[in-house]
């Protein structure tokens, strides 16, 4: 049976759908600039910088070690992985898990994150719900079960209405998540208006590289380097080179 198709007043489109899109977008842009203003300087210690570079060097050794002579590769591998005094094996960093209690700057960071992101979303969601209440805004293109009705049709008291017809509050939430890609287009990557990324960060715990990771990272590098072999890329280089004449085009142009 076909459900009765509702015909919505086109004023709804003009005065509800579009304003909500604009509001969401502008709030996102404002959030981005506010987060830039409130950004605290993340100071790195010398040890952290040094460790990250060591890890990069070890990774480069694994990937591009084939371009240096075998002896040099083995020398470096020995330096990193030696049983007695290899760097990766024996360097233990003090592990201080950055919990909000012990680290005051983490606490303020979390608070700032909450204030800039979660609070406005709740406030504006509530305001939109109050302002644009009592009518149906739009229809989602896929059928929903009845369970979604109280969630998505907040102001509308119709028992027989299809759950696909949603109110303006749900249109607002749809916008919040949908405009994410618009933000990266306009504000560039890594922008402060990208809510889902911020929520992910909050869930994983710390925004900076955790110190506990360093020990684990060292161990992982040690294992990876143990497995690496040296396949010298220059084995047959002369033969390859001399298989054809040199290409001297454009050599002596001004």
């Amino acid at each position, binding site marked *: 049976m076909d459900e009765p198709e509702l015909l919505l007043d086109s004023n709804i489109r003009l005065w509800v759908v579009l304003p909500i899109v604009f509001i969401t977008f502008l709030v996102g842009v404002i959030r981005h600039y506010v987060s830039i203003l409130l950004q605290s300087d993340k100071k790195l210690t010398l040890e952290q910088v040094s460790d990250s570079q060591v890890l990069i060097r070890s990774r480069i050794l694994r990937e591009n070690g084939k371009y*240096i002579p075998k002896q040099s590769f083995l020398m470096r591998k020995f330096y990193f992985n030696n049983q007695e005094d290899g760097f990766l094996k024996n360097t233990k960093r003090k592990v201080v898990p950055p919990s909000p209690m012990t680290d005051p700057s983490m606490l303020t960071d979390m608070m700032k994150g909450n204030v800039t992101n979660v609070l406005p979303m709740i406030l504006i969601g509530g305001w939109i719900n109050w302002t644009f209440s009592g009518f149906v805004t739009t229809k989602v293109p896929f059928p929903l079960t009845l369970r979604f009705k109280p969630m998505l049709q907040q102001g509308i008291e119709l028992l027989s209405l299809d759950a696909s017809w949603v109110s303006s509050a749900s249109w607002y939430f749809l916008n919040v998540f949908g405009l994410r890609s618009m933000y990266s287009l306009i504000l560039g990557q890594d922008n402060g208006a990208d809510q889902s990324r911020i929520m992910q960060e909050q869930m994983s715990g710390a925004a900076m590289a955790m110190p506990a990771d360093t020990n684990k990272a060292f161990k992982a590098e040690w294992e990876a380097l143990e497995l690496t072999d040296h396949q010298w890329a220059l084995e047959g280089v002369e033969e390859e080179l001399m298989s054809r004449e040199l290409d*001297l085009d454009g050599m002596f142009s001004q």
Partner: protein
Amino acid sequence: MSKNVLIIVFTEMRDKLRKWREDNHRNSEQIVDVGEELINEHASKLGDDIWIIYEQVMIAALDCSRDDLAWTCLQELKRQFPGSQRVKRLAGMRLEALEKYEDASKQYDSILQDDPTNTAARKRKISILKAQGKSAEAIRELNEYLEQFVGDQEAWHELSELYINEHDYGKAAFCLEELMMTNPHNHLYCEQYAEVKYTQGGLENLELSRKYFAQALKLNNRNMRALFGLYMSASHIAASPKVNATVKKANVKYATWATNQINRAYQVSYARCLL
């Protein structure tokens, strides 16, 4: 020569400066000419670009001993960015140019007190030692720096140069190996490494140098220096009494091939000259 550079149009001047800045050119006299005119005549049209142009022109002015211009630029930058470490480093560089090495060193120490991870200040301190001719100390300091910041390629290259000047070719080769690993497609590092190995001498090193000259040629067919290097190392190995017949034959083949390519290159250049 500088007359060719005096371009009248403002946007062209600004774009030239930007290109030199991005390509890291060290044509200080040209930068001073163009930059000075830009700053004096067109300061208002530059907007926020002017600060980075001040920095660029100041460094070029220090190169050309134009302390007056350097001082003006520094004052403007100090006024706009008080307490900035980048500006402090520029002030230190000016002291270095005036040979006031003690004061410059103190300046850099104050930067490092605020921010121990600042690499620019550390590197300037090492270049003070180099300017004073204390190469042994410079090498030691640079080694300590590299222990902390293993990934700094500029520093590895500088260290390899210092070692070459001290004729410590083994350690210079180590530094160049680091560079070759991080930049496997750069033919110049391969060629420099091959030259160091060739200078070290000994049959094994000569073989290595021949291989790396060949690699440099493979990466860039037009590297004449590598071509000559290939010829020299191959003929050296072939002429050595310690090699067996097969190795000798192979190296003679390589040397002949290199000779042919060199002849071809000369013919190409001769043909070009005739045009």
